[in-house]
């Protein structure tokens, strides 16, 4: 079950801060093609920060993490140049783990 606009401003600010300071991790033990364009070097940190900065509260949702449903992920779907992006992450204690950065499928 997805909820809308839960902690949007805090989540966005936290993710941007993590990107700016390098205090973030990519999830997983492999680089999957097309799944995380920041991880594969196809987009820059600055580009993702710009996407997040333009993201509105209505373009943010949360959802349960797919293998630990008790934890929730933040999903940002900002639009730039008529293209909708999909950015997914979760926060644990002081850590920020980035799961996805790619163009939205729908």
């Amino acid at each position, binding site marked *: 079950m997805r909820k809308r606009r839960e902690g949007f401003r805090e989540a966005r600010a936290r993710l941007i801060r993590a990107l700016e*300071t*390098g*205090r*973030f*991790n*990519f*999830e*997983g*033990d*492999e*680089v999957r*093609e097309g799944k995380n364009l920041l*991880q*594969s*070097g196809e987009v820059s940190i600055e580009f993702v920060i710009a996407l997040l900065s333009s993201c509105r509260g209505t373009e943010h949702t949360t959802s349960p*993490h797919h*293998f*630990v449903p008790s*934890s929730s992920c933040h999903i940002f779907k900002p639009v730039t140049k008529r293209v909708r992006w999909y950015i997914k992450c*979760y926060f*644990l*204690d*002081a*850590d920020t*783990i980035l799961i996805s950065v790619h163009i939205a499928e729908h």
Partner: protein
Amino acid sequence: MKQVLKEHDTGAALCRTCRKQTKTTYLYRDFSLTTPKLRVRRVLVGVCDVCQRTLTVPWQSNERIQATVRAARARTETSGRIEARVPSDLYERLRLIAARLEARDEAFAHVMLRFYLSQLSRSAKFAGRVRRLSVVREGSRASQRVSLRVSGKLYDQALKQAQAQGVTDQSALVRGLISAAYEDVFTDCSPQRRAVLECLADATN
């Protein structure tokens, strides 16, 4: 200023194996990629304290992984591949050369063939010798495969020189190179080249 993690720093992540939030410790591990297929040695990653699975890749490690990927792609784009079929007696000669020079078979054979390609690209006289030696003996069947990746520059120069001397296919080229090396090692016709081969054998051991 970006944060830089070090070995034995700790963090937290969701573990796919344990199916819960776990503590992680940053450790150096080899990191394998599927596209392009390569392994990056000693990358700092977040490892689950419970099951030891790699859970996270910090930003700083990803920079290293991407630099390795870029270098590998650049190497692939600018390199050429020599593919040849050679008779088994020539393949045996490759092994005999390595044995005589007390070198490791496979590693030495590749380095030696690159060296001979380099010699060929620099000398029309040597290229002519390679052409003479590339002639196939009657009844010999090309049953062994030799594959060699070389820099794009060496590939272009060597093939250009070989073609100028009438060596038109890669199998003939490799036959000539192996035969020339065999002569150099077993007949003392070129003490200088033999000395270089001895150095290469030492370097690859």
